[in-house]
């Protein structure tokens, strides 16, 4: 390793609450005037500033940089981040040189004195014969710094291991599978490439164990590693035989070593494992519960009025494969109706198995008064420590029912009651016919579309009819002309024949020919108006028709305004 840290000067911050640190380092305190040296300014911490200004240089000049690199490390969930700014410096003259105090935020790194002597103290890297060979830049001042990124770094030493807490057990017994990472390098990410498939097991996730952030020391094949448990699973075999746990492959990302290094990812696989699983013994009433359990039953009250309900609670607690116990016991209480239970669970996965309790609450509705007996409820489980099936049972309970006629506690649940506690419902005697088959969705869709088309067709026909009517109507310009002509009647001097002809012409322009077969109000009004106009037009001049003509013009104007 290079002799770095001639000037490793950690910050002597006045503020102990600073959320980042600042370092100023050079790779040599004594150099020749023809040499170069590196100055590295490093900030580390979550609140580090984005910029670190170059400190004042005395008898030194910058010949390269700054080159920035950021490094993020995540180890055991803890993240640390640092950023470095690297400069290449060259002395100007023999004598004393100095890198001034570096400042960033409220942090200050002290100045670094450097002695400059004549000639060259540091060996120049041999120039390659081929300028376009492996390193076209020859005397790269950062060669040493970057060499790890140019393929010369040794392969990372990493392993993943899978370990079982035991390899021989019975069906339903728990075992813990732990995946661990053994590493000599910093790792930024680790995840499954191929998630393992636990065929033949019921799997529960376990919380990650509390371990030191730095892991624990481990030696494998003479190599020292740090071991980090990364994942733990609780497995319950569901069948007997030799069950295999296939290898799991992890993809691991390594922390970058230099700022030109690519993020490197490697894959590591665990060894396949196997466990030998023995079958469980069989016994009447045994449904596969394995572990150590306690059972209990209780009533929420000892005394109840006829017509009211009591709640019977059956509870199983302990450690084992509690999640497999999915059914409560069958409860039959003579003289009472027992409704189906509601189940509750308070379970937690631990390395010893699933711990907690499951309970079932039955609503018991007495159907007769007197003292009802709730029989002992049994629960069988396999005790791995004892190696046998244990039949546990609750204590029988009694329930006093007051009020109503006593029936000696012999009444049975009515047939067809919601809970028959095992007794089948009455069979139906007639093979009734099911509902007629429904029309297919295609048929319904077709008929719907047909109805819409018919509606559209009717609407279209209406539009066409109205279109014909509107076609018969005069254009707005003609209407305006007609009304102007009507306005002339009475306003200008003209004979009654001229005035009547003008009115008739205006009506014709506005309405065209009025069909004799049209019996609408519009047609009737127009025909009457035209008759009056013609009467005045062809009548002998026996008096003054001015008022009559004005009246006809006003009626015609009203008709045009209303109907044209």
């Amino acid at each position, binding site marked *: 390793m290079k002799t770095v840290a001639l000037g490793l000067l950690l910050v002597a911050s006045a503020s102990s609450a600073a959320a980042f640190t600042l370092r100023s380092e050079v790779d040599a305190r004594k150099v020749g005037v023809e040499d170069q040296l590196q100055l590295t300014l490093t900030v580390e911490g979550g609140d580090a500033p984005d910029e670190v200004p170059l400190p004042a240089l005395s008898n030194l000049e910058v010949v390269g940089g700054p080159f920035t690199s950021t490094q993020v490390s995540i180890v055991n969930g803890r993240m640390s981040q640092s950023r470095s700014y690297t400069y290449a410096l060259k002395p100007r003259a023999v004598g004393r040189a100095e890198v001034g105090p570096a400042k960033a935020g409220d942090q200050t790194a002290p100045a670094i004195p450097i002695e400059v002597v004549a000639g060259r103290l540091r060996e120049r890297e041999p120039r390659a014969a081929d300028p376009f060979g492996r390193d076209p830049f020859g005397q790269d001042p950062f060669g040493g710094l970057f060499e790890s990124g140019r393929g010369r770094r040794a392969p990372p030493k990493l392993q993943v291991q899978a370990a079982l807490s035991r390899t021989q057990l019975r069906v339903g017994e728990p075992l813990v599978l732990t995946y661990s990472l053994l590493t000599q390098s910093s790792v930024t990410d680790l995840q499954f490439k191929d998630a393992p498939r636990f065929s033949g097991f019921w799997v529960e996730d376990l919380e990650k164990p509390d371990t030191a952030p730095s892991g624990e020391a481990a030696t494998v094949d003479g190599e020292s590693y740090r071991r980090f448990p990364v994942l733990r699973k609780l497995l319950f075999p569901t069948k007997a035989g030799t069950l295999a746990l296939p290898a799991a492959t992890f993809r691991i990302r390594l922390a970058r070593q230099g700022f030109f290094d690519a993020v490197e990812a490697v894959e590591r696989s665990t060894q396949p494992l196997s466990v030998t699983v023995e079958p469980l013994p069989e016994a009447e009433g045994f449904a596969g519960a394995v572990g150590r359990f306690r059972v209990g039953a209780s009533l929420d009250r000892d005394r109840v009025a006829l017509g009211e309900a009591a709640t019977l609670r059956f509870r199983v607690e302990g450690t084992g494969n509690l999640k497999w116990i999915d059914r409560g016991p069958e409860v039959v209480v003579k003289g009472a109706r027992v409704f189906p239970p509601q189940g509750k669970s308070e379970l937690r996965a631990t390395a010893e198995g699933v711990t907690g309790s499951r309970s079932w609450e039955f609503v018991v509705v007495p159907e007769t008064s007197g003292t009802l007996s709730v029989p002992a409820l049994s629960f069988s489980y396999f005790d791995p420590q004892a190696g046998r099936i244990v039949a546990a049972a609750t204590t029988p309970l009694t329930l006093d029912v007051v009020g109503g006629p006593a029936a000696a506690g012999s009444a049975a649940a009515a047939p067809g009651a919601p809970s028959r506690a095992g007794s089948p419902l009455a069979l*139906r005697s007639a*093979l009734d016919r099911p509902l007629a088959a429904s029309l297919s*969705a295609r048929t319904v869709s077709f008929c719907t579309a047909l109805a819409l088309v018919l509606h559209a067709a009717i609407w279209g026909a209406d539009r066409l009819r109205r279109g014909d009517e509107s076609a018969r109507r005069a254009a707005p310009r003609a209407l305006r002309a007609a009304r102007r002509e009507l306005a002339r009647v009475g306003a200008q001097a003209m004979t009654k024949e001229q005035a009547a002809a003008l009115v008739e012409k205006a009506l014709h322009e506005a309405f065209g020919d009025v069909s004799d077969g049209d019996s609408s109000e519009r047609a009737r009004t127009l025909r009457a108006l035209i008759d009056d106009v013609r009467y005045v037009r062809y009548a002998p001049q026996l008096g003054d028709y001015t008022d009559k003509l004005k009246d006809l013009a006003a009626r015609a104007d009203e008709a045009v305004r209303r109907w044209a």
Partner: protein
Amino acid sequence: MGVTAGVVLLAILLAPAVSPDQAFRDANELVRAGDHPKAIAAYGQLAASGHESASLYWNWAQAAQARGASGEALWALLRARELEPGDRAVARELERLRDALNLDPAEVAPEPLAVAARTARRYRLDLVALSLLGLSVMARLFSRSRVGPPWAGSAAWTTLAAGLLAALVPVAASLARPTAAVVRRAAPLLDAASPTAEAFGSLREGEVVPVLETSGEWLRVEDNAGARGWAHAADVRRLDAAPLPSPAETR
């Protein structure tokens, strides 16, 4: 009892002219005699021959329950509900059995549109829709005539809207995925439609799962946790069709 049951079953099998009603009554006798497997086989034959009804599946469910096959009982009740959505006894018994199997309501109803299908069937919304649509067309024609009442136009629009809404239900229901019920405890979920395929999970007894694909006697299903795999048709029975002949005897 066994001899009696055997004779009854033989009579069912050897008498081709026996009516479906008589076969149903004979199967009921088998249940009363305690021969539940043969009774279930007889019910299965009746169903496979097209004589399905809610009563048949109701009795099938009772026989399955007496035999301890709760998943099969739940399937039979679900099938009864498909045929007779308005049967309240079936609905009550379904709820009781679901509770007894510790199943969440969502675990027996993975397809929301299936409810629409049952509603459409129960209230015959297909026929209601067609009737309303026909009425709307007639009302529209009536509104055009001179003798039509003034409300005919409004009635046409109202019945058209109601008819479209009613038609929407069965059409939307047709988009529902078919479903099936798990009739076997811890039925294996396989990674291929083959008896030699590897089981990578198991299905809960009574759980209703959508059917994604079929291949011969195999159904590709998706359990409530989202795992997709293949299951045998004898372990996972469809709710949209009658079961295969003699399902109780096949496995």
